[in-house]
């Protein structure tokens, strides 16, 4: 389902994406295992991300990565990916798809988001191809800077509350 929020200078589109949360050392063994499947080497620098057409790969902390599937995969294929990663005994991979995904674009996106978060969204502090884990509307969110838009994710259980807060931020 896609729902769009429109405001002056901002558009929010909801996407139905999938995600795998990966924990591990991030060493060569880790990189090989992941790279074989997604053709991306895990970013080494914390809060950095890389992407190709199919995946977005971000380093969330020293031992945690998020792998977002930008193209919808079958449940079976996703399960297979998780299993392949978990076959490596030094990796923990969990299907993390039950997440809400918003794509936020437009010149005023920072203004509206500043009603909901204290996070410094200025380009010099939050450059393109980086991500952040921060509080938005008082809930834990991940925010990915994709040059001209942000990808914002939060737990699915907050979806209704979060949408109401987004609408409220637009209305007021």
């Amino acid at each position: 389902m896609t729902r769009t929020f429109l405001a002056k200078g901002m558009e929010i589109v909801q996407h139905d994406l999938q995600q795998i949360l990966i924990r591990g050392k991030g060493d060569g063994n880790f990189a090989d295992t992941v790279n074989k499947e997604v053709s991306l080497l895990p970013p080494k620098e914390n809060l950095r991300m890389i992407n190709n057409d199919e995946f977005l790969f971000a380093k969330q902390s020293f031992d945690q990565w998020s792998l977002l599937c930008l193209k919808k995969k079958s449940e079976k294929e996703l399960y297979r990916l998780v299993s392949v990663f978990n076959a490596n005994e030094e990796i923990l991979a969990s299907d993390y798809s039950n997440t809400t995904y918003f794509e936020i674009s437009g010149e005023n996106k920072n203004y509206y988001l500043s009603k909901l978060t204290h996070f410094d969204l200025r380009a010099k502090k939050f450059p393109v191809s980086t991500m952040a884990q921060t509080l938005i509307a008082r809930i834990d969110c991940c925010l990915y800077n994709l040059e001209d838009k942000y990808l914002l994710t939060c737990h699915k259980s907050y979806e209704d509350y979060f949408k109401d807060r987004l609408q409220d931020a637009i209305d007021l």
Partner: protein
Amino acid sequence: MIENKIYFKFDGKTFEGNEGDTIAAALLRNNVKLVGRSFKYHRPRGIYTCGIEEPNALVQIVNEYNEPNVRATVKKIYEGMVIKSQNRWPSLKRDLGSINNLLSPIFSAGFYYKTFMGPKGFWKNVYEPLIRKTAGLGKPPREFKSKSIHLNHNVDIVIVGAGLAGLLAAKKLAGTKYDVLLIERESSLGGIMKNSKKIKFINDQSPNDWVKKTQRLIENSNNIKILKNTLVNTYNFKDHLIALEDRSVGKPQDNNKPELVLHKIRTKQTILANGHIERFISFRNNDLPGVMLAASFEKYIHRYGVVPDESPVIFTNNSSTFSLVKSLIDLGHKPKAYIDIRDQKKIEAEILELLTKYNIPLYAKSEIEGCDGKKEIKRVTIRIKKNETIKIKTSMLCVSGGFNPDIHLFTQSKGLLKWDKDLLTFKPDKIFQNTITLGSVSGNFSYENVLKEVNEKLSFFEGINDLEVKLDIDGPSDFQIKELWETKNLKKSLWSKSFIDLQNDVTTKDLRQAVTEGFNRIEHLKRFTTNSMGTDQGKISSINALGIVSKILKKDISEVGTTTYRPPYAPLNFSAIAGRSTYEFYDPIRKTPIHPWNVKHKAVFEDVGQWKRPWYFKKYEKETMHEAVQRESKQVRKSAGILDGSTLGKIEIKGKDALAFVNLIYTNSFTKMKPMTARYALMLGEDGMVKDDGIVCKINDQHFITTTTTGGASNVLTHMEEYAQTEWPNMNVYMNSITEQFATLNISGPKAKTIMKRVFNNIDFSNERFPFMTFNTFDYLNTKVRILRASFTGEQGFEIYVLPEHALTLWERLFYYSRDLDLVPYGTETMHLLRAEKGYIIVGQETDGTVTPVDLNLNWMIGKNKKDFIGKRSLTRSDIVSSERKQLVGLVPINKAYGIEEGQQVIEEKILETPIKKPIKMLGHVTSSYFSPTLNHSVAMALIKGGNRKIGSQLYVSTSDLNVIPVEVVKPNFIDPKNERLVT
């Protein structure tokens, strides 16, 4: 220019004002001087200032939810505004409360502390209600749904104040790489340039033209954002400022727009250019309406085009009042008299020249002794020589006692102050944060030096050049002042008062009395007299109080020191602080995938953490919770019930050292546990107290899935991460929270297995193939489900873990396939009842952070042969193993008709005295209690001292009406003690 006329009401009478007028400006325009009554003595009060520092003119805005204590000198009028004066009855002119003024000679400092000591009970029932009724400011506002919002900013530089210094700083930073926020409390920029005629020209332009041009330059710069009508209230550590913007200035509040915006600003550098505050002088009856600060009088002229009086008397101890005289003369008026305490030789030539030219009487080396009038000033008494006074009739007295740099924000930032003997004021000395002070806030009262200061102090910023600005100042260029805090009171009348704090009705006599009574430390004296403790925080008078006290103590002011300036700078609405975190957004809300079904089936929800969990389901509209819970639980025991358990925390643990890790985290031993089996597990803190519980599912030695309590999910993960990262960093183990990745459907009851067989017809649920506390993953339709055979009700039970997107379909299928089996949805209350019947604990209900596994009779869950686990050492402490500790027992009322109340005390006394006169030995308390429909009587669990030894004995449980009910102490397990139902 044609001004737009605005009509508003004050105390029921309609007045006309101009668009842009504050309430005070509009009232002065209509020659209204009496606007309120004072806090304690109900003395008539007028408009003293022209800004946020106002101590007197506080009003109630009736049409804005009866908003109280609004400063008339700040709030702008709009069409239809309804204003009421405060603290008077029945009317402002005839206030019965003014009897307090007649009684005032006995209301000295500390009156309340000394007087209302007895008789016992009088304070609560007589004195306090009476004092509260007669004293005070406005009435509380009506409830309303605020639309105030919060807005966050991250910038490089904040400039507080857009007067001369602030604008010069902004101009210097315009077009640079820095993100700058320029904050101005007024609705237009310019500060002193808009308030007076002190500056004639800037770069050969009128100050107004220069301000407009500079504002355009700033607005076009792209790196500076201007916030008007915004007051910086708080300067926190570290370089964090809170500012309040009033978005409804000069217009009625719009219910669809935010009336207030709370700006939360994080910056690297703060430039304080927030100016100064004029202070008053204490003299007899210095509170009469018609007494006003000189700079405020001038501000009314220039900002609002209002001349409060055409021929006021001016009383000063400094050189700043030149511009007021000049402003009046320019308008064709002139002061009735000019009184300066300085010797004529010390008075600036420009002032003398002006007074002489326009034939204005000068009283040099003189002072105001006092003023007289009933509801407003009628005449002033001037002491021209030590023992010689004259009286002058006047309706207005303008006073200037010098200036205080507006150091509130600077001191909030923990900057240190120093006393300036020449300027007679405290000014910033040492910074504590990244703060720069510019202009009069730094004690720089010379406009010509401001430019130099700006260029010097901002020179370290990269990419900026020195500004060149030519200032043409009208009048004395240097600020000169002679010390005067208070004039000598000639009249000895008991009702003539010389005020030091106008808002709290504190007199200079109160200060003397306080010192006499031993309150010679300024912080003590402040609290004893309540000086500067009003909502204005003594902005125009606190330094005067220090001056007077220093004279009494015969000390230098710098030795007396200042009191602490605390945030906020000025009062701000609770609605602004709360922002959107009210009503529907009070707390974030989490919903499970089954939530829509729960809503449709009339679930009544309870908040568990942020989750909305069904508490119980109403079968019909008038069904009570008790009826619903009794019905649900009976049905579960008879047939089957289903609970939405999706909120339970779930953590996936994997790694080479996962087994060792789980063994350390939980008390149980998992080493010999077979793969694909599960175990109820306890987690302790270092202190040996129960922290959480859950089920640990072992996939293999390297891979586990555990569940946690709903409320404890994030804490448990944090606890695990902390130990993995800090205590056992060499372990190869990782954890992911998968709480949201699986919905959990808990089905239990004697028919549970039958229903499961119907839905999952390819799975063998026999006891042999699927025994209690085992689990497995199965293909189901197009997905996979993990099924765990476990129970929290004491009945045969299964927990189904399924991807959330399939959860609702599966949930409905379970109902579809059990149409003839009476499957009932049940909520958390029934879950609690069912588990209590079985004697299962709930962490947080049977535990409170002081309960060990031994106290709960869960010794069997402690791995005796384990080398270590968190909390193990604490469990060996003598007082932890003492048999006298409180232990978990069951309670059953002897008379089965009685119910036991949760939280009540368990005692040995058969009868409770009423009232209770001697201590009663409390054995413990009831942790859980329910009426069991299966047993048809109440069952309860309690933690009582030496509980295990008391099993079989009779004790008593108190009731809320101070009775007791006899109970039998039993084992905390009321049904199926042999667990036959679990394994059938």
